[in-house]
């Protein structure tokens, strides 16, 4: 392959593209969409995080300002965890608006994460949302197909392909020249969007986060770079194997509809159909049932708690719980909290297991649909996928559990047993010692691990694309 010939062919494709109306309209539309989605994405990110950060502080302040009281009252006073958005959510909204944003954390009870944007929206949300990533995932592929469907098919129809070959240009040079031309053309959109994104990453990442955000940014950039290469290769291949340009266009449009709209949605629906999930009330019933089996702290004759009591009495060599050196009520509650949290999390784990099965159908389709690969990668590295949400939920639950148990410990240590002398409240200084809720995003290592399937699929597609183009180079029909 001669470099200058390939360059020439690629430049030819650029010239043709810029002469056509499609490129003009597409560029104008993309510019408008880029500005709109960058603005609305940033506004959303900024305003939401501002509000949530403010409320999180308020919550901590009011926690610390509580007067002296019984620690168990504090564990019912509880706290809130508010989900912060990752700066890259400006790029890809992912599930951002479909998962909850705030959860009330109190003793004895795992509350749901509420107030998702979806729960406050109209039916329009189902049409999807415009984001920078959506432009790259959904709109640009269509543009690549528009700009590239005619490349080889049209030249063959016009008879110019025969001329090119007659002039001594090899088939390989034609195929790769066209491919590189189309791919580089699509990179105009990629680069302009990623330049805007870079600005946000640099602007909004604080020192500790910068490296992480930047690495995420790089993975996203490389993934989309490969994705466009794959799409360009598909375009060239379809164009080369179609008798007419019109036929190539119709085929490519069909591929776009199937891969971007119909297949992902159908597979997600199918996953849901194949693996039904319980409703909340069903799960709550099951949790309660299991808890009663294990030990019911309300029931004075419950064997589990009776045995616990006997062993505590024996260990401390007393006959009455009120003679124990610690507050017995606090002790029972801390054991109860341990038990109920364990049972609840076990059931929740089971539920997420089913969700994963539901999602896996679509996830594994990445091997036949490159769009699925990029969709999952893009969400994950933007911190807006399901795993990121679960990570928040885990952190909130850990905090809740610690809050309840610390308060139980304070009760055990400082609150006298029934009938004993002593104050029924403890100093408010203890509240200030309890640290505020702080959310940490998933580390990039974790994200990489979660998205291994999608990464492998994308790489396989890249290899397959080059392989396909090489194959085409040997048997491209000139007429």
């Amino acid at each position, binding site marked *: 392959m001669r470099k200058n010939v390939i360059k020439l062919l690629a430049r030819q494709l650029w010239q043709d593209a810029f002469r056509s109306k499609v490129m003009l309209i597409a560029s104008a539309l993309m510019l408008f969409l880029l500005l709109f989605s960058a603005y609305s994405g940033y506004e959303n990110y900024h305003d939401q995080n501002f509000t949530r950060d403010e409320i999180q502080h308020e919550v901590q302040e009011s926690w610390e300002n509580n007067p002296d009281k019984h620690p168990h009252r504090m564990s019912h006073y509880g706290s809130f965890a508010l989900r912060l958005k990752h700066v890259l959510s400006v790029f890809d909204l992912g599930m951002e608006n479909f998962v909850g944003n705030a959860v009330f954390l109190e003793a004895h009870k795992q509350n749901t994460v509420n107030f998702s944007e979806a729960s406050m929206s109209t039916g329009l949300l*189902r049409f999807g949302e415009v984001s920078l990533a959506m432009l790259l995932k959904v709109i640009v592929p269509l543009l690549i197909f528009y700009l590239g469907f005619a490349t080889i098919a049209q030249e063959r129809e016009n008879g110019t392909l025969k001329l090119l070959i007659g002039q001594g240009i090899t088939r390989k040079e034609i195929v790769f020249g066209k491919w590189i031309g189309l791919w580089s053309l699509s990179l105009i959109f990629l680069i302009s969007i990623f330049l805007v994104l870079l600005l946000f990453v640099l602007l909004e990442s604080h020192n500790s986060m910068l490296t992480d955000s930047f690495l995420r940014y790089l993975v996203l950039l490389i993934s989309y770079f490969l994705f466009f290469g794959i799409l360009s290769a598909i375009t060239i291949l379809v164009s080369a194997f179609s008798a007419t340009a019109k036929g190539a266009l*119709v085929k490519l449009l069909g591929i776009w509809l199937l891969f971007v709209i119909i297949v992902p949605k159908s597979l997600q629906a199918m996953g849901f159909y194949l693996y039904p999930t319980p409703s909340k009330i069903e799960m709550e019933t099951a949790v309660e049932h299991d808890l009663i089996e294990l030990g019911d702290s309300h029931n004075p004759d419950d064997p589990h708690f009776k045995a616990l009591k006997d062993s505590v009495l024996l260990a401390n060599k007393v006959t009455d719980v009120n003679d124990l050196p610690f507050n017995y009520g606090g002790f029972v509650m801390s054991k109860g909290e341990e038990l109920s949290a364990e049972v609840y999390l076990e059931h929740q784990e089971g539920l997420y297991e089913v969700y994963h099965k539901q999602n896996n159908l679509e996830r594994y389709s990445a091997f036949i649909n490159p769009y699925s690969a990029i969709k999952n990668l893009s969400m994950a590295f933007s911190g807006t996928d399901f795993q990121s949400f679960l990570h928040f939920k885990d952190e909130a639950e850990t905090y809740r559990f610690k809050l309840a148990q610390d308060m139980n410990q304070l009760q055990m240590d400082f609150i006298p047993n029934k009938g004993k002398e002593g104050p029924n409240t403890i100093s408010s200084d203890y509240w200030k010692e309890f640290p505020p809720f702080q959310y940490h995003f998933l580390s990039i290592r974790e994200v990489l691990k979660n998205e291994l399937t999608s990464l492998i699929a994308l790489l396989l597609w890249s290899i397959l694309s080059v392989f396909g183009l090489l194959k085409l180079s040997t048997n491209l029909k000139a007429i």
Partner: protein
Amino acid sequence: MYSLLFKSFFRTKIFLVSLVLLMSVGVISIFIGKQYLVKQEKTIAAAEVFQEESIKKNIEYHSEDLGLLLYYLRFTLIKKPENISAISIGQSDVNPLMQAVTIRALEAQKYDTDFENPSLLMSGNLDLGFVIIYLFPLVLIAMTFNLYSEEKELGTWRILAAQTSGKAGFLFKKMAVRILFVFVVLIVLMFLASTILQISMSANFWAIFLQSILYLLFWSALCFWMVSLLKNSSFNALALISIWVVLTILIPALVNNYVINTYQVPEALDAMVEQRDGYHEKWDMEKGATMTEFTKAYPEYKSYPVPEDEFSWIWYYGMQFMGDFAAKETSTEMMEKVMLRNTVSEKVALFVPTMHAQLSFNNLAKTDMMSHSAFLKALTKFHEDLRLGFYTKIFENKPADSVDWSTHHVKFYTSKRDVNWIYLMLPTVLITMLIGIFAAINLRKL
């Protein structure tokens, strides 16, 4: 003439592909709707058992103390499922079907969600509404984009032009055959849906049906207009798909982004905190701070004593009431904002048939935000009725058996809304007619 056109249409590849695609995806979507209904039924059955058993179990432990018993007991209000919802599942997967509430502060319980897989919420339900709004137009485009250009490109147009008197009439008839086919598929799917999902033939069902017909007429007019420009096949395909992308993806998504950003709802989070503080801070205040507002709202409980130095249930439930009271204003503002989002979306939708179709499907299937907000209102009323029903007995420290528990099974809420036919039909009819006129003008030149 028509029989020949039908025959030649039936011989095309696209006819078979369309038929298989629409029928298979359509039937799948109906079964997805069926599964949605089955899940609702199961949930309701579980809720009934849950409530009955939890009342029974808790009475066992707390029969002496009604105040404590009612601290635990949860009472369920269920939005009565309607089979028509299965056609357009809309927002009903995001918003829960039911809420099981204690008589403590409602604000902390009202917005609890059900469990749903967020990936599924994001990709949306593959319901019949989706098939009608997204797939039917695509099929129409696929069948009509080369209505004229194909004949021209194959060279058959000149023969045809020589043989027929009305060339525009011929194109129109060719178009009519395809529209008729799409309508037949639609009617078959609607019929299947009504039998498989057991939907009663209410005004809402017919309204959805009519809206679908109009919506498809709109797309037919659009395709016909594109044909009337007499461009080549590639141009038509490219232009029509672009229009489809703009109408079903870009414009609705742009409007949605705009609405979400313009009317942000930080009130939701504020109300959540206000409710907790409004209740909890009362523990550390003198009882008057609670009782003044409580007895102002419910003067009938003024005569019950509230001892200053010890716990009493009237004070406790008064404090709970204060939680809701503190959040009331912000909570109302929140719902107003949500409704504003709804109103703005609906207004814009009047000019965009895809959005109008989706929103009116959800409206007619009672799966939209309006329907959920009405449910939340009913829940507030349900909660108040519960409280007022129990207050006297709690405050008089009656035992658990003073209440007739057999009347406290799960309750259902049914909504009523009339179909506004003009509002529903007129926007699409007008837009369709306008496009039709443009197409007719173009074809005059033929």
